[in-house]
């Protein structure tokens, strides 16, 4: 069973084990966020909501929000905008990109997979482009709260593995809650529907089994429909 906690709830007296979503006051650990308490390893609170905070090494899906030579301004679904320098694009020299033509390479609203290289104290975020995943054609974006991402992946990737198999889709989950799906139209419909369902029910137990059941019954019904 899980335990829902609210800010200020007493968690423990072991201040050395205090982790994320907690704070220590007068030798006691209290919750600082609304979420689910967890005591595996460190004492922490897994939040039920909240904004994604970029941290070094995260691979996320960004949306180009603006162009300010020589940077692209990238929205990461976080409180802070990040900048991507033109030199991040491979195979293009600095001379080829000029003031007016940056949008020919990446335009506003384009999606990019980026890795967070550094975040400083002023929340200035440096990015590197990951060009191995193409996010322009033949797919679609699903957005869920970033707090639900671990649930969509599942323990040791069990949930995502099942989704990929049963939905016949390429699925890429970014840490900021943006998910890229590529596949046939009706497969993508199913995948995005199921992902949103997982996000909605992320706090319930036995979710992987329930989703499997749901996918199987959906498939069966569809086959019956095609025959009839």
């Amino acid at each position, binding site marked *: 069973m899980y335990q829902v906690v609210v800010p200020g*709830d007493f968690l423990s007296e072991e201040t050395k084990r205090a982790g994320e979503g907690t704070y220590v006051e007068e030798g006691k650990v209290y919750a600082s966020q609304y979420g689910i308490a967890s005591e595996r390893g460190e004492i922490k609170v897994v939040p*039920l*909501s909240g904004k994604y905070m970029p941290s070094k090494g995260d691979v996320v899906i960004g949306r180009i929000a603006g162009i300010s030579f020589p940077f692209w301004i990238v929205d990461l679904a976080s409180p802070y905008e990040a900048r991507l320098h033109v030199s991040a694009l491979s195979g293009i020299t600095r001379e080829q990109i000029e003031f007016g033509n940056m949008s020919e390479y990446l335009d506003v609203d384009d999606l990019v997979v980026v890795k967070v290289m550094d975040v400083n104290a002023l929340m200035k975020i440096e990015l590197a482009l990951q060009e191995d995943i193409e996010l322009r054609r033949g797919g679609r974006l699903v957005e869920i709260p970033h707090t639900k991402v671990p649930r969509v992946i599942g323990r040791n990737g069990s949930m995502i593995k099942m989704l990929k198999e049963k939905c016949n889709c390429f699925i890429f989950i970014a840490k900021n809650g943006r998910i890229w799906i590529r596949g046939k139209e009706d497969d993508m419909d199913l995948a995005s529907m199921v992902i949103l369902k997982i996000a909605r029910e992320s706090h319930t137990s036995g979710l992987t089994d329930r989703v499997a059941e749901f996918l199987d019954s959906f498939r069966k019904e569809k086959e019956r429909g095609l025959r009839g």
Partner: protein
Amino acid sequence: MKEEIELIKDGKRLDGRGFDELRPIKIEVGVLKRADGSCYLELGDNKVIAAVYGPREMHPRHAQDAKMAVVKFRYNMAPFSTDDRKRPGPDRRSVEISKVCREAFDPVIMRELYPKAGIEVYVELLQSDAGTRTAGINAASIALADAGIPMKDLVSSIAVGKINGEVVLDLNAVEDNNGEADMPIAMIARTNTITALQMDGRLTKEEFGRGLKLAMGACHQIYELQRAALVTRYNQNYESKKEEK
């Protein structure tokens, strides 16, 4: 001096409450889809909706703080929330209340975790019956938690006042308009830390002490309701999902 109106009959107030009794409170969490956190709250005939957005990029830029998030708090009464139509928009009163409410949350919101960002709290009064700022603070507290904003604690708030010479809890509009004093307070229930206190009218030192004690006791009751609203939201979902299956 106004003519005194009888507000207490046979040891009961006009609405039948005892001196230390709260009005009924109803709380609903997460009522707005597009807000990061929200709450609908009723305190007697007060109806208030609180929405929280952020942390997000702070605008205007010059108001950013390089070290911590800036909290914007807007208390607003709907034109139809009072007996006589209220002229819409901010006025002296609502600007002041917004400031007081914002500062009531200062000791709890961990602003230093979000440098340069802004956290926006909107409190809209749909119907008012005295004690609106306390209802607003109670709702905003829950909406902030719902938005996943790191906080040290929830803030609970209630007013006490004096009517017909008696110190009573949680004045309604009739009592407020015809009473001798009104004193809203906000506090952190766990640590008994008062984060806001105002007083309108006059109380003796002894009455002040009695009133404060009454209000602090009530804040503990409200805290339990706030906490329960947040906790049952997820446990309830859990139960209903099980039934569906």
